[in-house]
């Protein structure tokens, strides 16, 4: 029995890693589109979302199939369950990347070339979190996963700052809410991406040693 399941798991894993890479790239592109005012890149991210949605469903069905057909236990079960959960986190990350891309398009339409304020750091941090959480998953590296969980606080802090900055900016230009709200949304999206990366990291920890670390921080 093992061999069948193992073969299927390996196949699924491979597929899943491709999916991870896709999502990671999506986030990177979305963020880049904001910086580089690259409408085309943004449109590309938006279009690719369909693929991600499709992949998500396929992977979910695959997981369910494995659960139904092979009745896995212990590490195999934990692996599939984690995959199921990480899958939906990744899909949400994909959605959030689309959000960012949409805002990016809007910003370009409003013809506001330079970001009102700098959130390079936030972008970098959240990208890193996504990357690290996925690496932790692939390498089954508990340390990396823990690093992701710790990084989340910083992003939350950064996001709070954005609110302040927006408030300040509005005091100068009360009419600029539309453009500012775009940035607000992007910041919010990045913060959520960080949250989802954290979730992934938590699931990785669960997969590795079977303990649920959620809601402990």
């Amino acid at each position: 029995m093992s061999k069948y399941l193992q073969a299927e798991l390996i196949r699924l894993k491979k597929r899943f890693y491709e999916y991870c890479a896709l999502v990671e790239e999506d986030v990177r592109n979305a963020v880049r589109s904001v910086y580089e005012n690259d409408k085309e890149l943004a449109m590309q991210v938006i279009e690719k979302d369909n693929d991600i949605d499709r992949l998500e469903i396929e992977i979910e069905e695959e997981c369910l199939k494995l659960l139904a057909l092979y009745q896995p236990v212990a590490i195999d079960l934990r692996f599939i369950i984690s995959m199921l959960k990480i899958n939906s986190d990744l899909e949400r990350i994909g959605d959030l990347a689309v959000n960012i891309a949409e805002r990016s398009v809007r910003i370009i339409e409003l013809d506001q070339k330079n970001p009102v304020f700098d959130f390079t750091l936030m972008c970098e941090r959240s990208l890193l979190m996504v990357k690290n959480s996925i690496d932790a998953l692939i390498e089954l590296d508990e340390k990396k996963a823990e690093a992701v969980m710790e990084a989340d606080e910083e992003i939350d802090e950064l996001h709070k700052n954005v609110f302040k900055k927006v408030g300040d900016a509005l005091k100068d230009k009360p009419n600029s809410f539309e453009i500012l709200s775009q940035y607000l949304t992007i910041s919010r999206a990045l913060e959520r991406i960080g949250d989802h990366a954290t979730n992934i990291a938590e699931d990785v920890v669960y997969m590795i040693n079977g303990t649920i670390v959620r809601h402990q921080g």
Partner: protein
Amino acid sequence: MNNEPSNENKIRLETIDLSVFYGQNPGVKNVSLQIFDKQVTAFIGPSGCGKTTFLRALNRMHDLTRGARVTGKALIDGTDIYDPKIDPVTIRRKIGMVFQKPTPFPTMSIYDNVVAGLKLVGIKNKSLLDEVCERSLRQSALWEEVKDRLKTPGGSLSGGQQQRLSIARALAVEPEVLLMDEPTSSLDPQSTNRIEELIGELKHQVTIIIVTHNMQQASRVSDNTAFFYIGNLIEFNKTTKIFTNPDQKRTEEYITGQFG
């Protein structure tokens, strides 16, 4: 493995309204189904539901059973195997069978066991027999374990090896279809494992039908699953479908263990 859509494949075996009676009592009633080429089809269902009965009808094994009578049609590649003009011996060469308990011929060496189906009907060509022996043992994943002792008796192997030997012997006559009646139910988990892996490999070459009591086994090894209940075919569907979302309520109840 359960991914190829069944309907792409060619139909190899088909039954039309096949019933088997033991005296007056029907063992299975009016079963019509199609077995697809180069796929694994599993028969599941509670004890006494007629799985074995139906399986045995597919290679005329009921000819040997006292009081058993078969009605309806069973076509292999379009020819009715119950046609009176057909010699059952010919049919059984096309449709091999593996039984619940390993059945090596007790006095024969491993080699003779494998080539029994050829040697005993008069094929004497040594090099041909050697070739067939090696091929069949390789197919049944036994070659490496026995190649140095082909002359030792088949009975000296372990249970799991004997079952693989039975499979090799069945394969030696190049059947197009392989029927397996609970082939692992008398084996330990390890040997079961080997046989299941083997089924996965063989199905690229032969069409396989397997009766099993073990639903997990059906779910693991088969592409399509037929669920029998009190002599009736209740549902025939892709295995994935059966185990995640069967069409029939009774199938669902059975596989979730609510009866049977």
